[in-house]
């Protein structure tokens, strides 16, 4: 019994972390799924979902039930183990980065001193999942989508890392908590506007969203790497995409928008997480906004933009930052 009590706090902590992670992933997908369809509708001067519930509020719940009830179709000539593995591999790793995100100065699963590296490492598994899915489907559209996805993700990871490195040089830490704490007087968006711009552009490309949604370009590749997926295996990809958006927007918030800092609200002990979520969802709104405003880029434009503009600019920015840090 004594043994049980000794491990109880740690056990509760693990369970709470897991439950909170699941709540964030699924709740975020519900909220963003609804918000995205509504915003898309209003941007295009139409109302969006209206039928199920007030202003279509229950639409996503109903859609989720429908997706769960659908048959899982595996194409005849697909590579079955890989085909089934890909959605799981796209969805499962998103829980790990949520552990190190500091939702407020007290609310954090696990303060790892290499937190940012952990997020990058587990985000890279997502690319592998897209590749496996595209290859396992045994469909040329899927294959092209997967190949594009790799070229895009590998390229845009570089400016993203380099622009974040400028911040890491200034704070001397990979820990997200310390980076958030380091910007108490001024946010880093003021000191590092170029890095912020580069980070935002790479962020859109890394989450495979329009105007950089070439891996799933509907008009050319039907649906890219998830053409053959149906039902729950398709929705795991979507859940993974929304969770990745949440994670990457949280990273942008921590790096550039001061993390959970903000004006204290009446219930000041909770104001940190409110400000944090407000900033994250503003960035997600921004992602949705540009998705429905700009047309898709051409693939060579996309790659040229990364290799000829973003990477040189981020390198120059890093050099200037390093010199300034050394001088000051």
């Amino acid at each position, binding site marked *: 019994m004594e*043994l049980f009590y*000794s*491990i109880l706090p*740690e056990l509760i902590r693990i369970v709470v972390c897991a439950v909170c992670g699941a709540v964030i992933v699924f709740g975020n997908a519900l909220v963003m799924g609804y918000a995205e369809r509504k915003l898309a509708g209003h941007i295009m001067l139409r109302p969006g979902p209206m039928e199920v519930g007030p202003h279509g509020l229950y639409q996503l719940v109903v859609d989720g039930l429908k997706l769960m009830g659908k048959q899982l179709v595996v194409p005849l000539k697909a*590579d079955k*183990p*890989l085909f089934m593995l890909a959605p799981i591999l796209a969805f499962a790793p998103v829980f790990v980065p949520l552990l190190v995100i500091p939702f407020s100065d007290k609310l954090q699963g696990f303060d*790892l*001193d*290499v937190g940012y*590296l*952990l997020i*990058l*490492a*587990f985000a*890279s*598994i997502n*690319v*592998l999942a897209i*590749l*496996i899915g*595209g*290859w396992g489907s045994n469909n040329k559209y899927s*294959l092209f989508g*997967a*190949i594009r996805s*790799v070229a895009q993700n*590998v390229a845009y990871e570089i400016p993203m890392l380099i622009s974040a490195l400028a911040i890491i040089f200034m704070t001397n830490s*990979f820990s997200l908590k310390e980076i958030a704490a380091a910007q108490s007087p001024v946010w880093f968006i003021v000191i590092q506007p170029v890095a912020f711009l580069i980070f935002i552009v790479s962020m859109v490309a890394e989450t495979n969203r329009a105007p950089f949604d070439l891996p799933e370009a509907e008009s050319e590749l039907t649906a890219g790497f998830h053409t053959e997926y149906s039902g729950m295996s398709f929705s795991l990809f979507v859940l993974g995409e929304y969770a990745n958006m949440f994670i990457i927007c949280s990273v942008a918030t921590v790096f550039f928008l001061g993390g959970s800092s903000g004006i204290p609200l009446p219930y000041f002990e909770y104001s940190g997480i409110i400000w944090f979520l407000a900033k994250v969802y503003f960035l997600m709104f921004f992602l949705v906004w540009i998705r429905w405003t700009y047309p898709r880029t051409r693939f060579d434009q996309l790659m040229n933009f990364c290799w000829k503009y973003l990477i040189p600019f981020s390198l120059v920015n890093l050099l200037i930052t390093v010199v300034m840090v050394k001088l000051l």
Partner: protein
Amino acid sequence: MIVFEYIAEALFYAFVALTFTGGFLAVRSKLLMHAVLGLAVSLFGVAGLYFYLGSPFLTMMQILIYVGAVCIIIVLGVMIGNTPDQLAAKKLTGRNLPIALLACTTGFIALFVATINRTEFTAANEKIGDMSIKFVGENLLYQYCLAFELISVVLLTAIIGSIILARGGREGKTP
């Protein structure tokens, strides 16, 4: 606290099992793509062992570079290359199987015995601390700088090797 030690030990063996399973898949898969993914599993297991050794930095770098970059480049090479559809043979093939087995075993035993005899095993420190980043950085960029630069050739090797494998197939037939 003993429970945590058991959990840690179980995790250690789980990572060892993952490494070996991945390695076995990489060597014995019938399809080239499965072999590459087996390699990814194996490297992931190695990353877990690094975490067990108390270096989260090395763990993350292992996943980021080997699973996230090398494996993806190999997979891409296989996908772009003209992959032959036929499966590799199920049985171990080759005329010189006994000789190969003999050579492998002798080589392994010779190296193993030599390593065991030469190494002075010291007890691990109680807690190395989270100095891994500083320690690794100083060692890599001062003392072992040349080795560090040479290791980056690994990526090039991965690309060329994957193209050769994808064009020739596992059995070494040229298209």
